[in-house]
């Protein structure tokens, strides 16, 4: 018992020691929490909490006809962490086992390197133990999804080391069409075009939120209703005035001429007369490899306009009643000495005494020079004031950044010389943009009302219009009615009796326009290289103008074809031809045969059961075939409804007439067709006619109305 007692006090001593240690532990915990608590808590917050920016979704740019011109899509850059534990464990067993199949898979997916090359690449990265090995950049979401299914990659990030860096990039589905105008939103570079002009609208506002980092590098928002958090405001969409169909026509027409003539650069603008909307705008520049691309906004770059500017001269002279169209002017056979320089007409026509109208139609520089020298020789400012009134001395104000100011010299300036005024009359010694030319011709087409050209119709937020942009009148009346009539006469004359006669001989519509052929100064080589800028500006149909089109093409040195009528004219005509058939003709003359409608006759079609249901609900009698098919058509027969079978076979196209979308698509897809639809309502037309034989996978377009 003595021994046990001896032990017991030792036990209690130890127990008390333990209790004391426990007290110390508790004390220390208390100290950490209560005394130093604030320090540790704030340290914890600074270590694990971050303000994170929440990117707003950038708005989409639409065309007027509802096509997507520029939108944001995700893009992935793929990196590999070759030091990933899962990849390296067991001295790289997983890597070695998968590298062959992975290389094959990558090669098959991306098709940019062979499997061997991929294998070499992966081995290199593995050897270097690179933690952020760039495998492939800019892959699409679809490719990314496919990549995730490849061997090794499918084992997840920890085991494969595959890391995807997601970025939101802008996609232009129409690629080159109006590319420069729609613009770019690039990383590390200046935005251009509408992307830049409407950046504030498209961008939205970046939000902010507090996030806490947890396992695996994942951040979670700290507090859903944190007062300090700012929700991102997604960017608004903009709907432009551009029409992709017209744009395509315009771009193609221009491209054809550019390629054929190996031109340096060119642009074409289509403007809606009544509103000033720019419906299409093409800018093409030749690249070193001979191809063309939308590389610069030529439509907004001032150049010497050449003969198309003669319209402004004529407006001034007619307004001030310096002349009338029937006055004669001696055009000296095509060349005229003035103040020590020679005014050349672009063609040696051999004409002398002609009317002012004829001088304009033949695009005589001599005629125009004489007009202003006689009319404004002593009062050049009066002429300049006319140009000011026509807004040719300031930017057009089109909603596109990068427009440069035109250059119009003023009397008394150091650039003003004795020849300035006469040369101005035919479009030299001054610089305006093709957009100015378009605005001027459009004003004439629009009964003298000058409108500001514009590119954006509406700003839309979540499908709701938040801002509607209306046409802006720059000048209510640029000239008198009488002058307008005369101008129209002259411009029409150009296309019937003047320089563009042959061009529009067979056109089913009338054009009022003006050719232009300007010798362009080429840097310090001056005019020696014979670089011509061919242009054509005009509107059609002349009697009821719908569209104004301006085409400007800068030719290569010593080009064989350089006349406005030969280079820019055909582009204009191709555009106007197509626009006429597509958009103008119907509005122009609508001859509809007004026949008496037979209200007793009807034809419908639909799902048999549903049709029967309707009849029974309406308590209507109907005739029915012996054995009904799934889909039937209902045709009136002597005032009574009769069901007719629609036989659907894999070999023959059935008639879809009268069917609703649901039934029509179901039938087509059942027999293996690929369907595209147009319009709404019931089927009125089908691109594969009833009764014709069909093949699996064939396309069919169904029109509804």
């Amino acid at each position, binding site marked *: 018992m003595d*021994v046990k007692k001896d032990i017991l006090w030792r036990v209690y001593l*130890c127990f008390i020691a333990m209790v004391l240690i*426990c007290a110390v532990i508790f004390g*220390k915990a208390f100290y*950490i*929490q*209560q005394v130093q608590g604030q320090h*540790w808590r704030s*340290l914890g917050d600074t270590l694990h909490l971050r303000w994170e920016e929440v990117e707003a979704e950038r708005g989409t740019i639409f065309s007027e006809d509802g096509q997507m011109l520029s939108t944001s899509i995700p893009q992935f850059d793929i990196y590999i962490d070759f030091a990933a534990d899962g990849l390296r464990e067991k001295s790289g067993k997983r890597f070695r086992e998968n590298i062959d199949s992975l290389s094959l898979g990558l090669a098959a997916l991306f098709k940019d390197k062979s499997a061997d090359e991929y294998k070499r690449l992966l081995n290199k990265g593995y050897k270097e133990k690179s933690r952020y090995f760039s495998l492939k950049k800019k892959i699409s979401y679809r490719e990314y999804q496919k990549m995730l299914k490849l061997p090794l990659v499918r084992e997840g990030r920890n085991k494969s080391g595959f890391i995807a860096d997601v970025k939101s990039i802008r996609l232009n589905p129409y690629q080159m069409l109006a590319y420069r105008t729609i613009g770019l939103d690039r990383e590390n570079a200046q935005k251009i075009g509408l992307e830049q002009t409407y950046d504030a609208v498209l961008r939205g506002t970046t939000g902010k939120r507090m996030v806490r980092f*947890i396992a695996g590098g994942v951040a979670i928002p700290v507090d859903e209703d944190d007062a300090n958090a700012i929700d991102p405001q997604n960017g608004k969409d903009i709907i432009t005035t551009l029409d992709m169909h017209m744009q395509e026509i315009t771009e193609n027409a221009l491209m054809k001429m550019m390629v054929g003539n190996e031109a340096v650069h060119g642009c074409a603008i289509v403007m809606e007369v009544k509103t000033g909307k720019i419906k299409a705008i093409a800018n093409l520049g030749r690249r070193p490899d001979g191809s063309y691309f939308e590389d610069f906004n030529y439509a907004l770059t001032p150049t010497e306009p050449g003969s198309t500017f003669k319209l402004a001269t004529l407006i001034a002279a007619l307004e001030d009643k310096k002349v009338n169209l029937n006055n004669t002017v001696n055009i000296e056979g095509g060349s005229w000495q003035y103040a020590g320089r020679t005014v050349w007409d672009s063609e040696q026509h051999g004409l002398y005494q002609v009317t002012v109208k004829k001088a304009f139609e033949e695009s005589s520089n001599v005629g125009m020079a004489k007009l202003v020298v006689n009319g404004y020789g002593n009062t050049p400012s009066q002429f300049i004031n006319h140009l000011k009134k026509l807004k040719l001395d300031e930017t057009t104000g089109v909603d596109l950044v990068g427009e440069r100011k035109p250059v119009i010299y003023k009397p008394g300036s150091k650039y003003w010389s004795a020849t300035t005024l006469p040369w101005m009359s035919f479009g030299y010694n001054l610089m305006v943009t093709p957009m100015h030319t378009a605005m001027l011709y459009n004003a004439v087409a629009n009964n003298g009302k000058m409108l500001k050209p514009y590119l954006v119709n509406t700003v839309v937020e979540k499908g709701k219009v938040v801002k509607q942009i209306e046409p802006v009148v720059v000048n209510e009346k640029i000239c008198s009615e009488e002058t307008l009539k005369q101008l129209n006469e002259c411009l029409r004359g150009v296309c019937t009796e003047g320089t563009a006669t042959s061009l529009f001989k067979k056109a089913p519509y009338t054009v009022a326009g003006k050719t232009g052929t300007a010798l362009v100064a080429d840097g310090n080589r001056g005019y020696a290289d014979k670089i011509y800028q061919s242009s054509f500006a005009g509107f059609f149909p002349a009697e009821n103008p719908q569209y104004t089109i301006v085409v400007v093409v800068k030719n290569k040195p010593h080009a064989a074809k350089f006349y406005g009528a030969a280079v820019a004219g055909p582009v204009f005509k191709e555009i106007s031809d197509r626009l006429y058939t597509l958009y103008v003709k119907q509005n122009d003359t609508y001859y509809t045969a007004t026949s008496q409608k037979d209200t007793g006759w009807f034809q419908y079609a639909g799902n048999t059961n549903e049709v029967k249901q309707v009849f029974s609900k309406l308590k209507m009698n109907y005739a029915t075939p012996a054995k009904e098919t799934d889909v039937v058509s209902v045709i009136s027969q002597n005032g009574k409804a009769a069901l007719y079978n629609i036989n659907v076979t894999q070999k023959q196209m059935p008639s879809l007439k009268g069917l609703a979308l649901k039934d029509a698509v179901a039938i087509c897809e059942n027999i293996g067709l690929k369907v595209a639809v147009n319009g709404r309502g019931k089927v009125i037309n089908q691109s594969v006619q009833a009764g014709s034989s069909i093949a699996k996978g064939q396309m069919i377009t169904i029109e509804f109305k």
Partner: protein
Amino acid sequence: MAEQLNIRDISFASLNKQQLLRNTRGDKYIWGIVILLALTSLLVVYSATGSLAYKMYKGNTEVYLFKQLSFIVIGFLVIYFLHRINYTLYSRVATVLFLISIPLLLYTWLFGAEINEGSRWIKLPVINLTMQTSDLAKLALFMYISKMLSKKQEVIKDFKKGFLPIITPVIVICGLIAPANLSTALLTGATSLMLMFIGRVSMKHITLAIIVALIPVAMLVSVAVMTYNKEEGKSTITKAVAAGRIPTWIKRVQDFMYAKDETVPYQVQQAKIAIANGGLFMGKGPGNSTQRNFLPHPYSDFIYAIIIEEYGLAGGAFIIFIYLLFLFRCINIFKRCPYAFGAFLALGLSFTLAIQAIANMAVNVNLTPVTGVTLPLISMGGTSFLFTCAAIGIILSVARNVEQLEGKEPVPQPVVNNSEAS
């Protein structure tokens, strides 16, 4: 006849619920404590493994909940079986286990798996579990010491006959654990010395043992001081100076000695943030820990910090209280046990567990340098959980025998009619 009955007793002759309850004996408080700790472990481990589950199972956190649950179930089976065995059997088992653990430790040291740098683990065949051999060795050692202390009471003050036979196994085991896991070796040594003090080993001899043991520790600390560049606040120790795990030890000592606020090691910093996050009485609430995402091993080595974060200081104090209560109940068993081996067994194993708990908590509140000690019965499963259960089963076996002797449990009577019983 008695032997036969014993076997019938432990071998679930009938899984009858009532019989199972009737057969569950031993100290009721200790049973209660074990259940309480196991429940706590379920709650905290479930919460703390979130981040691990994210890494290993793509966020399927239930995996660890069920793993822990199955460990608890197996652990309880272990306790039940072991407490049904007559503890005198453990006297023989102790020697066998001790002898087995020596080659096992050697094997681990030379061929073991490396988890967290030190090679402390061996992979068990068939059941595919990694086992920390030191856990087994510790259990074996303490059982063996209890046996030796009870056997040598007569000659305990004698150096040759009393002291040496007891200290030798301690030195062997600690020496074998040390290369892989110095802190466990030191802790095991200290616990052994305390048991020897309780077991009336001469203070002179104990002091001598402490002095001898302090020599390597002193060397470690002095190397740590010497290789620490105070101006740069960096350790200048290189592989050339020391090999194996020695650099890690030195680094840890340095971390502890020269810790300033900015330079506290990451785990310590995060543990303190966790403690600071919890309140006095109310923590963040079950499952609301945020530090589990940053604290390394929040489900084992740093589980106590998570407990304070989620259940407040009060929760932390309660856990301390539970462990002390456990120790107190075991002392009670010791007092009631008339046989020296049983008494020492209860004392030795309970003190070991309590000391391990205290060590874990001390690390968590940064009283001592960071060591990989788990919180008994609370830290997530693994073999150490099962060895803890084994220790508790043995303690309960002693308690059951004490109760039997005191007449609370009837000494099993021979069953007259076998068919009636089954």
